[in-house]
């Protein structure tokens, strides 16, 4: 658990003149469930894209173990890190199985034709994410929660050790959201995946993450285990007087201040 699988070192990034990330450094350990929390517009999505090498850093470096991410080819990155973006819209009616098969692309030869083993891996990925029964359905006609499971199954088919997910529960109702988080937790425990989630839902993160990093306006406020990170002090810095912490067992829950009584 101690070895860092991903290391972000002094990363800054801006869109045109607008600075989005300011001198960010942190490490993610192999096999951990890491939450990136913060309000909308705090730079979470940009950070994930930089960690996956989709965006190039202006300053700073991202390492996968000892390799510098931006020196790897797209295929090499895709075999190490998978990324599930917040919105995924396929313009054409691919079936669920065809979509998950796309996750095998970084392992295919020049002609891009899947073999028996690829189909087997995809079948298992669909089973683990409970979308196997949907395999012949079109991705355009399944529910939001199912779509998210398909996207996770596709990422799983990539067989990368690290999975990055951007707001995987954003458009889901509470029970679907918890199902998705439980699925990710089981991938961490059974498949030994390193899970990195960006989310503004701090309560959901507190329940599942091993460690949480809180970022606001592109700066790291703190990194800690869920039971320690949301102190009144930190919350005041981020949300003003609006929110307060109550603990259920050892897990902190953030509630609107006037509900505390």
């Amino acid at each position, binding site marked *: 658990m101690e070895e860092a699988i991903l290391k972000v070192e002094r990363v800054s990034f801006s869109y045109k003149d607008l600075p989005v990330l300011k001198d960010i450094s942190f490490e993610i350990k192999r096999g951990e469930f890491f939450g990136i929390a913060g309000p909308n517009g705090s730079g979470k999505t940009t950070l994930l894209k930089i960690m996956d090498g989709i965006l190039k850093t202006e300053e700073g470096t991202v390492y996968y173990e000892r390799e510098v991410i931006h020196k790897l080819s797209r295929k090499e990155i*895709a075999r190490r890190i998978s990324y599930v973006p917040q919105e995924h819209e396929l*313009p054409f*009616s691919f079936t669920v199985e065809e979509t998950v*098969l*796309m996750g095998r692309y970084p392992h295919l030869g020049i002609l891009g034709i899947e073999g028996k083993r690829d189909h087997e891996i995809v079948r298992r990925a669909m089973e683990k994410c409970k979308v196997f029964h949907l395999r012949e359905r079109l991705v355009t006609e399944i529910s939001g929660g199912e779509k998210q499971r398909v996207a996770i199954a596709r990422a799983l088919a990539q067989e990368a050790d690290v999975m990055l997910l951007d707001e995987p529960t954003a458009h889901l109702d509470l029970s679907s959201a918890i199902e998705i988080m439980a699925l990710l937790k089981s991938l961490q425990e059974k498949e030994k995946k390193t899970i990195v989630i960006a989310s503004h839902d701090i309560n959901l993160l507190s329940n599942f993450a091993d460690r949480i990093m809180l970022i606001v306006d592109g700066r790291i406020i703190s990194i800690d285990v869920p039971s320690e990170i949301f102190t009144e002090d930190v919350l005041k810095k981020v949300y003003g007087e609006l929110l307060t912490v109550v603990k259920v067992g050892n897990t902190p829950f953030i509630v609107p201040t006037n509900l505390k009584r």
Partner: protein
Amino acid sequence: MKNRKPFTPSKLIKVLSFFLLLLLFSFFLSIITGSVKIGLKSAVTSILKPDESEVSKIIFHIRLPRFLMGAIAGWSLCLSGAVFQGILRNPLADSYVLGVASASALGAVIDRLISLKIAFLGFPLFSFFLASFAIAFVYYMGMVNGTLNTGRMILAGVILGTFFSACITFLLTLLPKKELQGIFFWLLGDLSSAEIKSVVKVIPWVVIASVPVLIISHRLNLLSAGEEEASALGVNPKSTLTIFFLLSSLLTASIVSQCGAIGFVGLIVPHLIRIVFGPDARLLLPASGIAGASFLVLSDIVAKTILSPSEIPIGVITAFFGAPFFLYLLKWKRR
């Protein structure tokens, strides 16, 4: 199609064999139809044993080149149409609608006017250049914050097309009157003047463009999810897009320079194939190409027989069916 199985090589072979049979059928039909009646039996005999007879002459000098040009044009336009739809993530994309056809046509007119001495083995220089420019222009005009906006893209294409058409009209006014009829016919898309010489000129460019497109077709599937997602799945979006832009422009330009702008074929055929066999580009591209070859040959048979003995430019036939089809897709088939 609810029970669609994913892509496998054996599925590809089955589907392609079916369309090759259709192409064989359209071959025989195109050989025996025309202003001079030729029976199937005498056609087959003179293909197998060419002689100095009238039938042989008609077949080898008129009908065979016309069939070949039609098939190559259909292949290229449908293949590039399917590629345009993939990279623009839009089932409505077509070289005609996007202004790529007009751009190629303008380029071809320029190529003709200055009859380039540097023209290397019939390479459609200006046509290719303007077509690549048009598709790249439309892509970047349509891109808003990382997503492609259909409305903006089609509008940009239509405007670009109108502009290039105006340029063509301007250039045509500089021409002597007696050449106008020929160029006018060619602009509307025409196979009637196909010669074996022009077929030979087109083939190398079509092969050079088609082979790499088919080899990397799987990347089109990933790109249709958007640049960032494709990137996360292991595709380098910028270089892949550039390859597809250039090769599909080359396909369009080679055909437009020889046969003019035959519209909407590249829209109709890939669309129907997608409905029946699904959107996987590894099957969609070659199947659209071969089906498109048959489709254009069959449309050409209609063009030369419907008002026989006079002929209609084939572009008129395809636009006649294609334009309503496009409107139907625009109104009722949006996701």
